[in-house]
């Protein structure tokens, strides 16, 4: 079969002019523009995008740069944008991704580009290093034998251990898109992997670190990481587990926990969300500076007629809501 593959090329020794629009939506408007080149390849019906790229590189244009090794979704080399979302090229069937007669691939604009389809993964590896991704052994280390731990405790970690570090989650992470310091989905999933390992000694210290700025609370639950992960790691699920562990361990003095608490308190006390108090409670009631910083946003909301009502009304039957809280127990009983 004939397939049409459009490849976003980028040559660092001859970069395209930056003045025009690059075609990317915000916040990627500053990413270097790509030069889109169309290739036609002859491949069987079940072929994947990577097959096409290898075919092009071997028989049409040897200068096409694409990282790949295993071809079977194990090595994690070939994550790239396929039709505007991060995917493994080796796992994306041409027939599934050909839309209007073509499939478009490019290095994701969320990452620095090196050349063609190879992006600079340094941000990814740096984030990984920042979460201290190694076992800090619980002492004493058993002499000449293994730690005795239940199999369930190991199976609990296999979801993260399945991560192949392809970076697809980070490439499409909406929080990372606007905050390059956010630790990101993969690194935080890795953080959970060692935090929840019963052989690790640093659970508290880790939870404290991960609760700080750019950590677990900076995730916006957009679910892009869950959707893009080719190995079912579901990084967001691991982040949520870390949040629960952190709160249970008492690491609550941070905007993230306060934000979650403000939600819960408002619903408990009025049956609905009081959006007006949400922001001050999240940043801290006495954090005047942060509240002043939010003033322009509040004014814009006001102009657009979207500022929440000043008088927050309780819903009828509030007692039943309180009963739910009581039944659930926990911190908001």
């Amino acid at each position: 079969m004939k397939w049409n593959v459009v490849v976003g090329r980028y040559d660092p020794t001859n970069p395209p002019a930056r003045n025009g629009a690059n075609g990317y939506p915000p916040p990627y408007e500053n990413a270097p523009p790509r030069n889109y080149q169309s290739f036609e390849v002859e491949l069987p019906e079940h072929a994947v995008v990577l097959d096409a790229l290898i075919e092009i590189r071997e028989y049409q244009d040897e200068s096409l740069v694409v990282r790949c090794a295993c071809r079977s979704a194990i090595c994690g080399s070939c994550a790239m944008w396929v039709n505007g979302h991060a995917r493994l090229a080796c796992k994306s069937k041409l027939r599934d991704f050909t839309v209007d007669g073509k499939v478009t691939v490019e290095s994701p604009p969320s990452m620095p580009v090196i050349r063609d389809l190879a992006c600079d993964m340094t941000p990814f590896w740096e984030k990984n290093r920042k979460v201290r991704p190694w076992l800090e052994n619980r002492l004493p280390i058993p002499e000449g034998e293994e730690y005795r731990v239940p199999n369930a405790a190991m199976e609990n970690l296999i979801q993260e251990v399945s991560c192949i570090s392809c970076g697809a989650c980070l490439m499409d992470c909406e929080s990372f898109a606007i905050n390059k310091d956010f630790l990101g989905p993969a690194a935080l999933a890795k953080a959970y992997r060692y935090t929840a390992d019963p052989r690790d000694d640093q659970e508290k210290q880790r939870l404290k670190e991960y609760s700080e700025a750019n950590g677990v609370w900076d995730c916006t639950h957009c679910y892009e990481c869950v959707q893009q992960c080719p190995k079912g790691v579901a990084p967001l699920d691991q982040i949520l587990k870390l949040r629960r562990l952190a709160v249970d361990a008492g690491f609550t003095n941070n905007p993230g926990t306060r934000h979650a608490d403000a939600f819960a308190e408002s619903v408990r006390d009025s049956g609905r969300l009081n959006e007006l108090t949400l922001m001050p409670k999240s940043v801290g009631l006495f954090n005047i500076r942060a509240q002043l910083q939010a003033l322009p946003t509040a004014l814009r909301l006001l102009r657009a007629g979207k500022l929440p009502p000043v008088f927050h009304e309780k819903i009828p039957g509030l007692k039943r809501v309180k009963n739910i809280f009581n039944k659930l127990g926990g911190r908001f009983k």
Partner: protein
Amino acid sequence: MIVDHDVVVLGAGLAGMRAALEAARSGVNVAIVSKVHPVRSHSGAAQGGINAAIGEGDSWEIHAFDTIKGSDYLADQDAVEVMCSEAPQDIIELEHMGVIFYRDDQGKLGTRAFGGASKARTYFVGDITGQALLYTLYDQILKAGVKVYEEWFSTDLYVVDGQCRGTVALDMMTGELHLLRCGAVIVASGGMGRVYEPSTNALICTGDGIALAYRAGAPLMDMEMVQYHPTTLKGTGFLMTEAARGEGAYLLNADNERFMQRYAPKMVELASRDVVSRSETIEIAQGRGIDGCVLLDMRHLGRDVIMHKLPQIHEIALDFLGVDMITDPVPVRPGMHYIMGGVKTDVHGAAPLPGLYAAGECACVSVHGGNRLGANSLLDTLVFGRRSGAAASEYIKGVKPLTTGEDFLAAEQQRISELLERPYAGETHARVRLELGTMMDQYVGVYRDEAGLNAALSKLHDLKRRYDLVSVGDKSRVFNQALTFVIELGYMLDCAEATILSALTRKESRGAHSRTDFPQRNDAEWLKHVLIRRSPGQAPSIDFVPVTITKWPPQERTY
């Protein structure tokens, strides 16, 4: 640029990272050079597990015997003793590093059955054991702060006065060549699977370190011993782990018969890999195959076992062939998977060239002899990675620092520049590589004979002549993959030469080397290793070394 280290490791798979970790622990200045990021290494694709005799009723001697029998008595028994007796401590150490091994009801390490093993001694993490180990070791080298030159590609070894003193490497990101000077080099660059087409191996398995050592004058051993894995996926050739059969999967022919019952009445599907691959080849050749394949049947294992213990191969078969192994058998065929041969080393990983060490698939200690048992390769990487790291760290204490190397680096820069500038003459690396791989699979595969091997040799000479005309279709400095592919092809041609010449030499059938013109094992004449070496500018020469026998005299091999 010239940079100095005490020890430089080529490759960042399990053997390389384990070697580097050991060197770092010894307090020496160690660096890893790897053409891909460490976690992209092909060790990560190992699925089934890692062997060690830890459990009750098992002993390292039984493990050693299984290994030696599996090797068809070509393994050096002193080396096998080292590997099997040290295996338990390495598994325990991995567990202490954080590998999430499967546990039994008591929370102790649990095992699964594997091919050619008389006891269930394979420790595992689902069917991603290699990946779990690779990441744990990567985490450990991060913890230890080991320097890694990521995406640096080795183009030559630096040999001074008969000692290996470093490597020249291309920094892919900038296109610049650098000399990494050191007291000892540990080659841990993996196998040469891409010499064959198809192969289960990743595209990066191009025999770089083997060829570099060969060119530097180090002897290669047992290069004729090429393992075909019995269960590689139809079409793409991806690996379907032996753990599937370890968990109870059947192999069926077109008559729906478990044909292995005829070839290996005791072990059936769990006979050693050379035996199963030969049996499949016979079934297919005699017309009982299905479209060039046999069937791997897991339906009776049930969804639970498949999804919990073999999820990755379930996903691969579904993704790449559209077969759901819960409801349908998977078509498989023997496919090139592993090389038992490699750079000859002693039990400390030392090659006969001073300052040169090797560990992992690129090395030949020899613990696998004529046929490697499943789940012994990960073990090999760890035991001999560790030992070579320790030995190299000790060796460098007696080595004086170097101040030379500018000329060598300049000459290498010149050589690479000329290669880049070579004009297009109608030959491309892709075409030559494809012809090489197809030819090797045809003539130097499961069955071989004199005529086929001679045909392979003459084809190889032809390909080598054409290789000299191959041009690099990319002139950029930044991330020039075409350049590295051309250099890799040169490595592959050298590896193929060593394999073909060694296969022509061994006039018997042993392990993975089955000669239809010499169908019997011949201990009287061939209980010895085939060594091949090439001095610069000379034709390759063949030599022999005896097999070390300690406790287990050769017997007839049945499963």
